[in-house]
């Protein structure tokens, strides 16, 4: 039987990157440093960069991990497409951290973007996870495991990502109202908004689609067009069940229907469940027995 089909043919050779990662000493990976950066005091490596191809009729794109998110977005814009990865930094960093942007309600989480990844394992091997097509259930879904793994299981080299149509028309709106008993109640009045933000008394809503549809929706709710959403930079990031948003207090901007809250205060800390912690440790030990990849990084540590 053939050992390796043409899946990777025409794509960049990752053996140099694998050689740099090596197989013995502690090593960390650096990108643009916009999401925390590399582990200090540890030998740092950098993944290759650049877009390999864009296939608009497949709605897929292949790029190397250090490619800036902005470059991918600009290249896709030429084809009327975009990607559900939040701006700034590198694609590899965005996937390794796994946090979504403000459009998650409409675009879905970052974890669903990754179709195939090639990464360098702790043993220095190039490993293929997932497949090149938009639908694939061939084997275990390692791509989901890699997104949000903070470089603790392997260092991403390149990847095939799912793209989506870029809306030809989108508009942010504002609404100051107390007519909804629970912020989620506004969702029943909107068909598939891309984002609904709420600070306790005001909503910001992002709608896209056919202009006539957007205008009809906005008129029915008396939404006021605005330039954009409130600035949420510099805030702490909470993760709550969306049903809990109605009880929030303080200075916050909540993503309605999603549960991400951009808050001035730190989130409450919760100790991880013992069974989950043991399972997490077994996964780390199986993928990186000597703990050489991003040493000291714990995916169970409290974020903010």
């Amino acid at each position, binding site marked *: 039987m053939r050992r390796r089909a043409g899946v990777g043919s025409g794509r960049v050779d990752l053996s140099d990157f694998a050689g740099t990662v090596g197989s013995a000493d502690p090593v960390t990976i650096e990108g643009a440093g916009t999401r925390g950066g590399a582990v200090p005091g540890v030998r740092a490596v950098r993944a290759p960069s650049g877009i390999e191809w864009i296939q608009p009729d497949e709605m897929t794109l292949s790029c190397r991990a250090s490619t800036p998110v902005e470059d991918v977005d600009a290249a896709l814009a030429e084809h009327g497409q975009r990607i559900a990865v939040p701006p700034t930094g590198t694609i590899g960093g965005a996937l390794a951290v796994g946090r979504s942007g403000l459009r998650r309600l409409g675009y879905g989480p970052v974890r669903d973007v990754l179709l195939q990844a090639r990464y360098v394992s702790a043993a220095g091997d190039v490993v293929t996870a997932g497949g090149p097509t938009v639908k694939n259930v061939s084997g275990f879904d390692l791509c989901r*495991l890699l997104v949000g793994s903070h470089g603790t299981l392997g260092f991403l080299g390149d990847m095939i990502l799912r793209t989506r149509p870029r809306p030809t028309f989108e508009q942010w709106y504002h609404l100051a109202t107390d007519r909804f008993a629970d912020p989620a109640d506004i969702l029943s009045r909107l068909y598939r908004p891309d984002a609904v933000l709420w600070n306790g008394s005001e909503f910001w809503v992002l709608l896209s689609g056919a202009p006539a549809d957007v205008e009809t929706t906005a008129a029915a709710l008396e939404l006021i067009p605005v330039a954009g959403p409130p600035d949420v930079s510099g805030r702490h990031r909470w993760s709550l069940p969306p049903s809990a948003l109605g009880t929030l207090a303080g200075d916050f901007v909540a993503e309605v229907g999603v549960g991400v809250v951009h808050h001035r205060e730190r989130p409450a800390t919760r100790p991880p469940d013992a069974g989950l912690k043991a*399972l997490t440790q077994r996964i780390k030990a199986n993928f990186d027995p000597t703990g050489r990849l991003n040493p000291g990084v714990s995916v169970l540590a409290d974020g903010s």
Partner: protein
Amino acid sequence: MNDAAVAELVGVLGAPRVRTGPGELALYRRDASTMEGHAGVVCFPISTDEVRRCMEVAVRHRLAVTARGSGTGLAGGAVPLDEAMVVSTSKMDRILSVDVANRRAWVEPGVLNLDLSRAVAVHGLNFAPDPSSQQVCSLGGNVANNSGGPHCLSEGVTSVHVLALEVVLPDATVVMLGGEDPEPRGYDLRGAFVGSEGMCGIATKICVRLTPEPPVVATALIDFDDVRDGAATVSGVIAAGVVPAALEMMDRLCLQAVEAYIHANLPVDAACALLVEVVGLPAAVEHDMDVCRSIAEGHGARHVRIAADPAERALLWKGRKSAFGAIARIKPNYYLHDTVVPRRRLPDVLDQVYEIVARHDLLVLNVFHAGDGNLHPLLLFDKREPGVMERVEAAGREIVTASVAAGGVLSGEHGIGLEKRELMPLMFDEASLAAQGALRSAFDVEGLSNPHKVLPSPAGCGDVQGLAAGVWI
């Protein structure tokens, strides 16, 4: 089967829910594939705690465990090997809660796929993954196989719609994977569990996303003189920025078989037809259907039949979903394949499928999810013909190999199970298979949860030892 283990299971569940009779064991030796194994005992727990206690018995006696939903899998995933303890989730069939405002529900794994959509329809919601078996397949099975369906083109497969899972791990601990919150700490173990084909434990509660019913739906049947024109239309529509809710293709033999069966005035002289559905708000639906129509006409479409009312829409969908019943008019048996290729390669790979099948002196009928390149060739045969099964198997292997060589994958929605595990090296080298094994052994240190599935057996290990006599793969 170990008598002491059975006695302990009876202690946990009571005798009526622990079955060891030969007739019952025979019922549970297979799924909807052609493969068979041997069940040692069949258990019917009704709660997480009962599943956990069953798992404790298995751990104590080192029994293999095979979880089973409705048994509609097509790749042998629920076929019990090593005289496994079969854990049927069919009696865990309650919808536990529905949060209408935030569009999610907690369900038990035995809830049937379509029953969930029916239960939430009153709120204008549905569960988006809609496998052809949706009337009988269970949500636990959907989770195990990361199931798809026609409407997964725009909505995504099961993984996209699962937020959290309560799982009994193979060591009998109970954990919550994922969560109702959007960014639970730690690895995405929810994502790793979905599609793991019963090899990482048993899901006992599932939190799913629900999808709002669209305000407007438009459905069209578009037929062509050449399969290539239909396939080019599929790529053209996607490249134009329109992602239909569903985009299905039926070839001539399929159209003829279905028409003879349901009399829907289908274009039986066409080479193929596309069933296109666009949904959303009115202006968007009108725009998207115009795009589909003009691209199809640019590729030589003969007719664009837009359903005038819900009854006609239902008839067109009945045509798509009746293919499996209709083929009984042609041959008594079929073998359904499932591969994915890049959309642009559909014409070439379809040509190869027709050529492979003709060379093996078989018939093929194609009815599939063209929008995401997910081929479903149905090989038709009469198993009473001597030697036919060998030809069916050989043709199937060639179809899978051709799909992967075209830049595709082994399976789009049926999974690997027993059927395709030895083909995994077509897609994955040794280091990549080892990484999948590393995930599995972290969940299941002892390797007792649905053993011998998905991952090819190590070379020279005599992989038939796990299979019962008479099994063919």
